[in-house]
Structures are given as C-alpha cells and as structure tokens.
C-alpha cells in the first residue's frame, strides 16, 4: 500500500518535471537553475548541459542532446540497465554481479573523468 503510494508519487513528480523540461527550453528560459560548479569555478562539471540535453531529448532531437551533454546520453542506457538488474537481482544474479563488477564501475569512472577534462579543454 505504502509502496504503491511512493511509486505513484514518484511517477507523478517525474511526469510534471518531464512536462516542464519538455515545454520550456533551459537554454533560453531563466527559471532553470545554473550549475553551481560552473558558477563558482568557471569550469564545466561532468553534468553541465544535462538540463538542455533532457529538453532536446524530450523534443526528439537526439543529435542536439548529444551536443549538450554526450556523457548523459551514454549514462541513460547505463542507468536503465542498472535499474533493471537491481529489480531482477534475485532472478538474474549474474547480470547484477556483472554490472556491479569493479572493472565496469572503474571504466565508467574513467569515462566520467576523461569527459570532465576533455570538455573543459575543447569546450564541448
């Protein structure tokens, strides 16, 4: 009962947020918060551009979304697969174990750090 309520609430919040990000463009609208890290340091963080990328994605423009934050576009399928593995942990233990293997997490970490460095050098 409580679990259902939580799920319904989460879906409702996601729908509202989804609609806001679909309708308003963070690139031109000022209601969206700007990245704290960028504001303070002047350097982009690995997540910068995610809001614009989500807007582009919700409007069906995959190429533009890649341009705003390519790493987010890589992370989304990763997150989906991880969530699936999490929910199927007792049914498919090997999938969960493989996804959470130190080597794979390490690869993701290297990707994030490389992305962080390169995007600040080449202004991606």
């Amino acid at each position: 009962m409580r679990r259902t309520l939580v799920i319904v609430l989460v879906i409702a919040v996601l729908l509202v947020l989804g609609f806001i990000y679909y309708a308003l463009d963070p690139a031109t609208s000022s209601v969206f918060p700007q990245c704290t890290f960028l504001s303070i340091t002047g350097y982009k963080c690995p997540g910068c551009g995610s809001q614009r990328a989500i807007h582009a994605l919700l409007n069906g423009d995959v190429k533009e979304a890649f341009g705003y934050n390519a790493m987010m576009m890589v992370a989304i399928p990763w997150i989906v697969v991880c969530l699936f593995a999490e929910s199927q942990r007792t049914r498919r233990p090997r999938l969960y174990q493989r996804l959470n293997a130190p080597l794979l997490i390490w690869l993701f970490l290297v990707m994030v750090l490389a992305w962080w460095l390169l995007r600040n050098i080449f202004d991606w």
Partner: protein
Amino acid sequence: MQYWINHNGVQSGPVDADGIKELALTSRAYVWHPGLSDWVKITQVPELEGLYEVVDEPATVGQPLQPQNTAPAQQPMNSQPVNTQPEGAPEPCPPTNLVWAIITTVLCCLPAGIVAIIYAMKVTSKYREGDIEGAKRASEVGAWWCIVSIILGILSMPLISLLQVSSMP
C-alpha cells in the same frame, strides 16, 4: 524461497529458483536457505532438482570455504528449523548505490557523485575479497555521498541563481 549458494568456493545469493538456473550450478554446489541450520549439498534439496548439472564428485573440490568445520553434512540435522543464517553463511553484497551515483554525477552539478562511484567500486571489490564489513561501510559512505550530492545540488542551485540575478546591473 530465497537461497544462498556456494559453488566451487564462490558464494552468491540471495537468489530464487530462476536465479539458480541462471548460475549454471553443478551438483558440487552447496545451498543454504532460511530454515536450514547449516549448508547442505544441492543434491539434498529436492525442490531444486533439475536446476543444476549433475557431475562426478571429486572428493575435495567444491567443499565450501565456509563454514570452517567440515562435518556439517554428517551431523544430525537440527530438529528445530532456524531462520537465522548459520555461522559464516554468505551475506548478500550490500547495495553499491551505483545507479544513484551515476544519476547524481549527471544531474547534480557538484562532482560529489564521482566520490559515490568510487565507493560503489569499493563495495564490490571489498565484498569479493570477503571483507563484508568493509563492503557495508563503503556502501553506507557511498549512500551518504549520493545524499549530500542531491541535497547540496538542490539547495545550491537556486541560491546561485538568486546571486546571479541580484548581481546583474
């Protein structure tokens, strides 16, 4: 029913019957589930029949690393079913929080999510070394980094926006 498995010294669980099929076990595997006082050979668990491959039995291979005493199978079974795990029973790997670490890295602008990713890695590597306590600690610390990242992200972004608006000419 959830089972814990020890196959050739590698422990996994909790898994259900479908999970056991996926693990591609052989008859050398040992099983524990709530209600058992100690590890038993998978061949002694009738409801799992057909879910593993029957192989020839070398005398020593496949002996579980834990529990240390080697005679549980010969001991008379505890007449009272127990619902706690026996000494040295495998514990499931604590949550790595990997999903949250990735989400906070991508969506919260403070790079605290990266620390959470490092701790996610620590959870599995410590668990695989057999350091369950260390894995639990890494899991908790990682979860805190995710929470810090989310809270600081939510709190700091409107503040920064306000500062920028107020500093505009």
